[in-house]
Structures are given as C-alpha cells and as structure tokens.
C-alpha cells in the first residue's frame, strides 16, 4: 500500500478511523469505525459521504464531439440537453464492454465524463485512438469527487443550492457549495437519491468537513459502497461485466438509447452494433440475474450455479455479499437463459455444500431516485 496513490481526502479518512486498502492503485477507506453494516444502513436511512476521487473525470470537447462520442458509445447524445447526463457503455469492436461511464453534456461542444478508476488509463487510450484529432481529451487530475447519498442528502444541500427541487436525477449544475466552486450532479451508485460533487483537490477536504458537520452525514467506505450497489442491482465493472460480456448479456439493453437500437432513426453506428443487433433479435445464451440465497452463507464471485434437477453447472456468481437491508445473502451472476426467469429455484456451490437460491428480479432494494 506504500506505493498507492492518495486522494485529497486521505488525511481526513485517517482522522475518521478509516481502514485503508489498495483499490485500483489508490489507498481508499474500505470502512470506518462503525463498520460496513452500520455504514450501509446509515446511508439507506440518512446520508453517507463517499470519497470517489479515484474515479476518472474527463472533459471531452471540440467541434463534432457529439457525433464522435456517439460512434463509440451506444447512447443518444444529440438530444441531450446541457447539464443532463446519461449512463453509457464504452464498447469494443466485438460489442463487449470496455467500461461503463456517465456522460454529462456541459455545452454544445463539450462533455464531462466519469469513468471507473481501474479503467481510466485504457479508456483514455481507447478514446484518443478512436476520436478524431480535433477532439480534445482533458483528464481532470486535480479534481476530487465526493458522493453524498441517501434520503437525507438533499436536506444537507438544501441551504446550499437554490431551487434544489429543480435538480432532478441525472442532471447537473455548476454552483458553489459552502462557498466552494463545484459541479453537482444528482446521481450515484447506491440506488438512493443523492449527489456527486466534483470539486478541486484543493477544496475537497474543506467541502467534506462541511458535509460531515451535518448530524445526518457519516463517512462511508468502499465496503458499504459495494453492498449498497449490489442491493440496488448495479453492475461493478470487472466483476458483473467486462470485455467478455455484451450489454445484452449484462442485461443492460436499457443503457442503449432507443434511437440507437435496430429499426430506429440512428440505429447502429457504434462498435459491435451488428453483434448486438443480432442478440437483441435472437436473444443470448446466458444473461445476468439476481439471486436471493437461503440461509446466511454468502455466495462469492466464482461460485457455480447448479440446476438441482440435472446437477449440471448452469451459471456462475459474479458478485455476492450479505444484504444488510434484507438480512440475507444476495448475489448477481450469469446463468443459462432458460433458468433466468424470476422465481426459478437453483443451487449454488459454496465450499462443499449446495445452497438453495431463487432467481430474483433486480434491484433487490427499491431505487429511490428523485425525478421531481
């Protein structure tokens, strides 16, 4: 860990009793003194503050940037208004997933893009290779990113942002928070209403201290971030999706904008479009599902899913944990499509035992995004 990079909040994490781990090359808090379960439940009931400064923040700009990005990501950007954002997938020529990202239009000719920490170098290289030379890619190295998530997140920002009600899910705004210049979006990775706040490294600790001064807010580490996103049915790159999976296999058809799907006005025109169109038409052999597991033993990544009738392996777990809200183990994984229907009973091999599980609709815990 001595070689790990530090985010601008490193000292603040230590002050709050964080246990630090290396994640994607950064020393990050996995939990604070309260522990993962309390931090998780606190976020669902009040508000959690997460340091996600390890993620890559980019500004991609230049004449024709909208069309250029549409050729790499199967989303509709032309009609995306200023300060509106969209979830998208960066695809390989085989139509498999290189990364998932959030694209926010800043102006007619520029987008703010947030990518995964572990993917950022590859993403930048891929974008540089495939975007025309006139398009500029700026990596905001000195920018921190804080996420404030939970049902009380909005009360914390109420006094800071004028007319906060008008900032709805997947919208952003240039503003000041506690006097500090920030770019605030109403988005997140927990399934809760909440915000992601981009702020300069110089101001990050001051902003975090202001937010933590509110009794509703507690610092929350990566451990709870993972259990929260799993309950919310959200994919973790490198686990629930990677370069071996297409958006259709990953159950992310919704992330392909309607205009980009077959038989629509802007169908295709992105890497692997033919493969993906074929899968939309004919289906896929295996797809991502949620699994609700009997008992208390969590099924972890790599555990095999078994058909109880034939005893054959029909799938594999890609994320598994204990759900603090449901108080039982939950998982996501890929399963033979004939077993993918919600309610189907399967077994999961955990060590020497086979544990009963049932295919469960995602998300496990209702998403409560603020849509106005």
């Amino acid at each position: 860990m001595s070689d790990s990079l530090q985010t601008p909040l490193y000292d603040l994490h230590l002050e709050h009793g964080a246990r630090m781990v290396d994640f994607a090359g950064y020393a990050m808090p996995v939990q604070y003194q309260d522990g993962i379960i309390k931090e998780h439940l606190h976020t669902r009931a009040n508000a959690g503050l997460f340091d996600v400064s390890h993620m890559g923040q980019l500004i991609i700009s230049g004449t024709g940037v909208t069309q250029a990005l549409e050729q790499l990501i199967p989303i509709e950007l032309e009609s995306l208004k200023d300060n509106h954002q969209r979830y998208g997938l960066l695809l390989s020529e085989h139509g498999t997933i290189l990364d998932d990202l959030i694209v926010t239009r800043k102006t007619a000719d520029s987008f703010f893009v947030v990518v995964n920490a572990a993917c950022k170098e590859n993403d930048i290289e891929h974008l540089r290779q495939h975007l025309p030379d006139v398009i500029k890619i700026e990596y905001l190295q000195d920018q921190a990113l804080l996420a404030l998530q939970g049902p009380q997140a909005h009360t914390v920002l109420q006094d800071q942002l004028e007319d906060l009600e008008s900032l709805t899910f997947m919208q952003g705004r240039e503003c000041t928070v506690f006097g500090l210049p920030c770019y605030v979006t109403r988005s997140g990775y927990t399934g809760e209403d909440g915000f992601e706040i981009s702020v300069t490294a110089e101001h990050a600790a001051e902003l975090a201290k202001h937010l933590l001064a509110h009794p509703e807010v507690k610092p929350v580490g990566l451990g709870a971030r993972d259990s929260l996103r799993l309950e919310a049915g959200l994919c973790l790159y490198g686990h629930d999706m990677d370069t071996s999976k297409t958006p259709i296999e990953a159950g992310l058809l919704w992330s392909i904008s309607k205009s980009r799907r077959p038989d629509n006005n802007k169908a295709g025109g992105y890497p692997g479009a033919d493969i993906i169109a074929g899968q939309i038409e004919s289906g896929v052999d295996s797809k991502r599902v949620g699994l609700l597991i009997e008992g208390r033993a969590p099924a972890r990544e790599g555990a095999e899913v078994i058909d109880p009738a034939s005893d054959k392996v029909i799938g594999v777990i890609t994320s598994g944990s204990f759900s603090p809200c449901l108080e039982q183990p939950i998982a996501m994984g890929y399963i033979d499509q004939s077993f993918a229907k919600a309610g189907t009973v399967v077994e999961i091999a955990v060590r020497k035992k086979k544990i009963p599980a049932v295919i469960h609709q995602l998300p496990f815990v209702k998403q409560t995004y603020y849509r106005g």
Partner: protein
Amino acid sequence: MSNLPNDLKYTKSHEWIQTNEDGTITVGITDHAQELLGDLVYVEVPEVDLEVAAEQACVVVESVKAASDVYAPVAGTVTAVNESLEDAPELVNSDPYGEGWIYKLKVNDPTDLDGLMDAESYLAESDD
C-alpha cells in the same frame, strides 16, 4: 491495541485458546482478528466429533466482504460448537472472548498446547 486477556493462549493465525478443566480447549478468534475482518455475517462451525489436525482449517468466518478460515490450534476432536452463532454471528465481533467462542476441542496430546503463544508473544507477532 485491542483487548488481549492474559489468561488465554494464542496462535499466529489469530485464534485464542482457553484451557478447560475437563481436558478440552475452547477456541475463538482474537479481538484483533475480528477487527480486521469487520462485521461477521456467517460462521460455518465444524461438526461435533470431527477429528482435526493441527493447523487444519475447520471454521469459516464470513464478513460482508470476504470469507476467511479459522484453524485448529492443535490436533483433537470437536466436542461442542457455539450454536448461537448460527443466528448471531455478530457475537464474534461484540464479545470475541466470551459469547463469541466458536468450538471446543478434546486435545489428542496436551503437550501440544505448550507450543502456543502467550498474550505478550502474540502481541509482538501481530505487530509485525
């Protein structure tokens, strides 16, 4: 540093051992170990009558994030397991040396216990 009772023995792999008058030992994990693991959500205890070798993995403790093995400090036969942990694995976090005990073992050769560490040695070892 976390709580470390002087009347117990310890292993490098963070088990504590209490010697009982009936020739059995009680085994659990140290306060330091439970702190490192974080909130436990499941403990897979061994079957009673299971014969274990020294340093054999015979218990699995699962935190929200990961599964870890707990090892037998010496060779013996499992005589009892803490059944409360089935519904309340968090007892290992809240009371690691008391309500959070994991299993009891009838030791094959009591002289094996001489090789275990005292609190001071464990502390020196786990500070590394």
